[in-house]
């Protein structure tokens, strides 16, 4: 029972959510919020693999999301859309092909992570941070200069794929895929990082020299770790592009990378459950602070004094959240969870579940 409790809980939750979405108990806005949470969980847990577990400092995670988003969007339009001529594949195959498309996007993103992982053989820390920022900018401006996929105007047409799915069965398909991929992400990372093989990553973080001399092939582990992280971010990008139905290079700029960074450090470096929790909290905060009413309420003392001032929620949100984070950092300078997992913080929880 203990062995499966978490799995059962997850499945029940997922089915419940899907049912609620299908029968319109939760409206499409709430669905989008859940999907954003899922994508942010994918981003933060995958970045946590590099920045938390391996202790590197890369700040260009959105670049890989961007690659995944573009590759899977283009494939998806080729296969099911009408933008580049007739669809290559029959619409009926969409349910099998779609996850493959997303995974291919992830795979290409994984390969592109070599841009960062190869320099990481020789350098660490801040120099690697720069390399990753440069890669982020480079990829965005490369895509902006590719006119055949829309350049800086963005790229669309992926909704055809989603409609093809809805034609087969009218249900909340994207929510379904996001739930599946989110669970897949956490599952892959958890299994990788808890194996002796994956603990090589932690060994590199704590003492790279000792790791190399104690027979850990550090370069290989680094490449694999970067690839897993980038690949999962690429999958997140593929899903994101299909939810929105439109991608623009600027939606993967350094601000997006910053969001991922914030989620990792808010959760605590190297804590998988911390990354998940902080992704939920962070997305929740973003959504809550989007409401103009709440912002107006929060700022009412100030607006009373300056009646001319009409703050917009979209802007104030980005003052509040960083401010909140700075304050959180002052009180918990190691993030919400530190480097511990949920089971370590609440040992009693361990009685109820086992997570592999």
């Amino acid at each position, binding site marked *: 029972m203990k062995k499966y409790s978490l799995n059962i809980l997850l499945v029940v939750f997922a089915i419940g959510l899907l049912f609620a979405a299908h029968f319109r108990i939760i409206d499409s806005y709430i669905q989008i919020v859940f999907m954003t949470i899922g994508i942010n969980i994918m981003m933060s847990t995958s970045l946590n693999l590099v920045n938390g577990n391996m202790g590197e400092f890369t700040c260009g995670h959105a670049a890989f999301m961007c690659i995944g988003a573009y590759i899977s969007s283009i494939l998806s339009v080729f296969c099911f859309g009408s933008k580049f001529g007739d669809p290559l594949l029959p619409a009926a195959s969409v349910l099998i092909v779609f996850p493959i498309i997303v995974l291919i996007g992830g795979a290409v993103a994984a390969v592109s992570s070599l841009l960062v992982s190869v320099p990481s053989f020789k350098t660490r820390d801040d120099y690697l941070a720069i390399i990753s920022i440069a890669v982020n900018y480079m990829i965005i401006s490369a895509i902006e200069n590719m006119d055949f996929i829309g350049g800086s105007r963005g790229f669309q047409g992926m909704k055809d794929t989603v409609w093809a799915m809805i034609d087969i069965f009218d249900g909340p398909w994207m929510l379904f895929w996001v739930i599946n991929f989110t669970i897949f992400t956490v599952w892959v990372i958890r299994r990788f990082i808890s194996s*002796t093989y994956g603990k090589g990553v932690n*060994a590199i973080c704590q*003492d790279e020299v*000792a790791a190399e*001399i*104690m*027979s*850990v092939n550090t370069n290989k582990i680094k490449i694999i770790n970067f690839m*897993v992280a980038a690949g999962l971010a690429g999958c997140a990008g593929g899903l994101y592009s299909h939810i929105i139905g439109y991608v623009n290079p600027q939606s993967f700029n350094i601000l997006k990378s910053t969001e991922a960074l914030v989620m990792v450090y808010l959760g605590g470096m190297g804590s998988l459950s911390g990354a998940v929790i902080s992704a939920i909290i962070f997305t929740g905060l973003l959504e809550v602070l989007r409401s103009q009413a709440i912002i107006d309420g929060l700022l009412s003392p100030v607006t009373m004094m300056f009646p001319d001032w009409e703050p917009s929620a979209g802007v104030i949100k980005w003052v509040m959240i960083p401010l909140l984070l700075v304050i959180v950092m002052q009180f918990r300078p190691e993030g919400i969870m530190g480097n511990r997992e949920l089971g370590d913080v609440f040992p009693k929880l361990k009685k109820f579940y086992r997570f592999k």
Partner: protein
Amino acid sequence: MMAQSQVQTENAPVLEVNSLSQRFGGLTAVDNFNVKLMSGELTGLIGPNGAGKTTVFNLVSGFYQPTEGQILVDGKPTAGFKPHKVTSLGVARTFQNIRLWNDMTVFDNIRVAQHYWLGYGFFHSVIRSKRYKKREAKVAQEAQELLEVFDLQRFKEELPKNLPYGTQRKLEIARALSTHPKLLLLDEPAAGLNSHDVKDLIRLIRWIHEKFDVSIWMIEHHMDVVMELCSHIKVIDFGQTIAEGTPDEIRNHPAVITAYLGDDNI
């Protein structure tokens, strides 16, 4: 118990170093260094501070690539090998300043050091295949045995940074042994230990030497440790070998005394 405990051909050189030199810019850290370590030997490498001892170890363990010269481990040249490759050939080492993975449990420290014969990769670890389970069980069993043999069982789930210094030293040696070495390089194992711990250490090293059937080569400043344990000692200064021989020969060697105590003429 250990894979290496099968009988090895006596008196085959486990390490052979021929005219090894290492230069950093204009500084010659190691100059024309030669050594031949027989299997089962317990040898010492001594010399004043900055003599190039640790550099020799760094070269042998593959951390530096030598400027000149050749290193053969078990008859195989290691030129161009990364340290993890050299380790998998059978050279393990400890460090002058303890370098344990401080935020991983003692058990994990010993398990991760068995990376070279893990025998499974990323996909096996994710799908938790049969091979994964078999290999993990094997690795865990080896680690468990080492912990028991080293009497570290009670610290299994502790973090190394919370252990006493002497225990950390012991753990580092245990971790080195978990890579199944033919040759164990100990870089100042007695550094920072008090005289009581030093006595324990001498016993420990002698016991390891017998139990694990491993050749040991150690750098040490505590002369009593070296003199008591080593059958053969090499002395280097400014990268050059100035003397070698049995402990008794070294004790009275004029060049050694000059190197350590300085020249009377100054």
